[in-house]
């Protein structure tokens, strides 16, 4: 984790890209869905704000029962609260709706549990900002970058890939990665009816049916004891399948 508390800037990938993003003054919104993340959210937000002071951070507290909301209020971020817990997909949708209403041109989805590296946001934003694609999806299987991933998780995620490929027709290498950047146009065409975890497949399916231009960008996901505890269990896959089976028609 990048140290930021003392006013130092976080690890900057390429200053030129920073400059580019700043100069083109594309309005970038980072949507952070958070459910009971008080333990790590401060670090994540400090990291984000220090690395990208020119981006808008939108935190959607998804009905947390801990101090997530109060804690976030101390930071210069947009703060929204679901009065009851709806699920990650719903929180992302609320954040995206908000960002679109506030003129976002590029929207990044970023997890609140400290698994993702803020410095890598630019790698996803850059191709979208340059107009090379409408959607940049993070993938954990780019260059063996998912540190600390357990074998069972790896197998489960790999098993989800052919399922997503068949059901959506998009040859992605990582079906359920929450790290992505969307152009305004792409964000507008997402339906996001899935409140819970199945939204990840739904996003890919929407990209596919809309014929949006997409690329995959290798990202590093840190698996810590905390994130593993917070993350999805094997049974989560059953929930995802059930949610997808019962989804409404367009």
């Amino acid at each position, binding site marked *: 984790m990048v140290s930021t508390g003392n006013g130092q800037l976080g690890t900057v990938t390429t200053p030129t890209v920073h400059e580019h993003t700043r100069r083109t003054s594309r309005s970038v919104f980072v949507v952070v869905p958070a459910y009971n993340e008080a333990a790590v959210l401060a670090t994540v937000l400090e990291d984000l704000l220090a690395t990208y002071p020119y981006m808008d951070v939108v935190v959607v507290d998804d009905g947390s029962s801990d101090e997530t909301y109060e804690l976030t209020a101390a930071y210069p971020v947009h703060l929204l609260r679901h009065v009851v817990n709806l699920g990650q997909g*719903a929180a992302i949708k609320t954040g995206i709706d908000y960002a679109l209403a506030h003129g976002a041109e590029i929207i990044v989805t970023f997890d609140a549990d400290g698994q993702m590296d803020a410095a890598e946001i630019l790698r996803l934003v850059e191709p979208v900002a340059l107009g090379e694609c409408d959607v940049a999806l993070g993938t954990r299987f780019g260059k063996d970058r998912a540190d600390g991933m357990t074998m069972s998780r790896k197998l489960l995620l790999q098993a989800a890939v052919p399922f997503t490929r068949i059901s959506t027709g998009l040859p992605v290498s990582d079906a359920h990665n929450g790290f992505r950047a969307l152009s305004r146009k792409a964000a507008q065409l997402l339906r996001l009816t899935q409140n819970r975890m199945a939204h990840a497949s739904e996003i890919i399916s929407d990209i596919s049916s809309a014929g949006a231009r997409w690329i995959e960008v290798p990202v590093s996901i840190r698996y810590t004891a905390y994130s593993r505890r917070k993350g999805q269990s094997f049974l989560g896959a059953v929930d995802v399948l059930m949610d997808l089976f019962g989804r409404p028609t367009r």
Partner: protein
Amino acid sequence: MIVVFKLFLIAALTVIVRIYLRHARSILRDRLIVLILFAGLFAAIVYPTLTTVVARWLGIGRGADLASYVAFMLIFFLVAVLYARHQETQRAVTHLVREIALLKAIQPKPAAARTADDEGVHNRNPKGRVDQDLYETTLRRQRR
């Protein structure tokens, strides 16, 4: 062969229920289907021999088998309908919760302004209170 056929029947039933829930659903039809299934059950209670007649006619054999099949289908259908209703409620709740979240959103100073006057992240409001004047100015600016 029988296993294959049964699998086919299960798949067909699943598809029919799904098509019904997605495309042909209405409260009136839900009620009609439940009514017809219940009518069948009552008929079977009043005239137990009727089930055997119908079962023979369908090639099932015993009337009790037919009754259990019908009961199974009724339960299956009720579960599916309840699930669909639950999803509708869930969608309504989501909509409400989202509207409240958007209405009560707390806004920081616009990011561009933060960078421009070099306040950045190091000069954030320690108490986390919203600058009401700024909030209203921003709102007014956006409305324009």
